[in-house]
């Protein structure tokens, strides 16, 4: 053969290469690739877990935001309700106070009227009584000085 090509040696080289390929595959290529795949899976899993946790955190954040917004609305409503209630209560109290004041004024006016009429009646009665006594004393000629003193004493008793 030209160039000393020898089929037997070529076959021996083939055998050598087949042994080398198989040996390197089982001893080195496959285990290293398996380890690399395992590590890739490990980090992919970590990535997935991180993504899940992030999604959960985002969901919780959204829920918290919704709750905060609901609480704000509730607070606003409660405040409005309380303001309405206070206003209503104030108006009621004001009306009651006005009514009471009106009643007090009416009562006071009535009492004042009664007092005035009673005082007027008492005064008239007293005047009549004094006039009758004066008339009686004039009629029986009593000492004017004693009469005056008697009348004065009676007046003090009346005042007491």
């Amino acid at each position: 053969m030209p160039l000393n090509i020898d089929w037997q040696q070529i076959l021996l080289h083939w055998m050598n290469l087949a042994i080398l390929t198989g040996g390197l595959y089982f001893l080195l290529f496959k285990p290293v690739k398996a380890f690399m795949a395992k590590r890739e899976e490990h980090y992919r899993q970590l990535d997935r877990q991180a993504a899940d946790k992030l999604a959960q955190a985002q969901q919780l954040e959204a829920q918290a935001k919704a709750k905060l917004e609901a609480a704000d609305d509730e607070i606003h409503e409660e405040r409005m309700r309380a303001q309405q209630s206070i206003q209503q209560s104030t108006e009621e109290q004001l009306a009651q106070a006005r009514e009471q004041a009106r009643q007090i004024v009416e009562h006071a006016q009535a009492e004042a009227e009664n007092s005035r009429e009673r005082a007027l009646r008492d005064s008239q009665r007293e005047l009549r009584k004094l006039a009758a006594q004066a008339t009686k004393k004039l009629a029986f000629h009593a000492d004017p000085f004693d009469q005056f003193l008697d009348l004065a004493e009676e007046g003090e008793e009346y005042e007491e």
Partner: protein
Amino acid sequence: MKQHKKALALWIVVTLALLAGALLAGSPGRAETVQEAMRDAVLHDVNQVSLFGLRPVAPGMISAFLVTAVLLLAAAAVRIFAIPRFRYIPGKLQLVLEEAVGLFDHMAKNSSPHRNGFVGAYIFAAGAYIFVGTLFELLGLQAITVHGHPITLPAPLSDVNAAIALGTLSYLVILSGGIAANGVRGVGKTLKEFSLPISMSFRLFGALLSGLLVTELVYYYVNLSFVLPVVVGVLFTLLHALIQTYVLTMLVSMYYGEVSEPGEPKKKARAAQI
């Protein structure tokens, strides 16, 4: 500083002593002319080595077995001692191994996206074989020929039989991908590239042989054996080890991807044409 100067002086003295020794010892005499050495480097018809006493083979065959043994032993050691201690945050050795495996695996996946499990493993082995086999000649391991002369074991792929074996095996791997993916159509696709085994074989053979010839030439003459081998032996060898590894693995993965690409169904193809 004094220690540094002493060490430097010692190194210079040892180097000069070795140079003087080499020059004074002289050469045992050449068993062959430079023409014969060159011819034998190409044909391997004279300086053959006995294969376990069975038959004489080219020294490249011995180199091939040694390279395979070294690679498998290293792989076994890594499998037993290193891989069970792999961590999610890799150390230096783990990083190198993962880079090497990942490089060929990604190359297979990128070039052959449809079917890449087997071709990834094959180009990993072929790449390791070419790279380590090419650097193997730097070790300068000696063997005794069937005629009793010592020779330096060459790179396995500088033997035409090893290059043909790797080229044809790569072609068969490509063919297997075509058959597995597309059946008879895959065979047709692969056979279209009938020149591929020849080109791959002789590209490897030519590249490695040229390195071998230059090295043989340099070492044949004592005057060229100083300083020059550092460039010729180490840098050139390292460079073409990388280049040949990349070229063959890239070609195999590309052609494998091409022939294993699933073809469009005829109806759809016609509809697309319309």
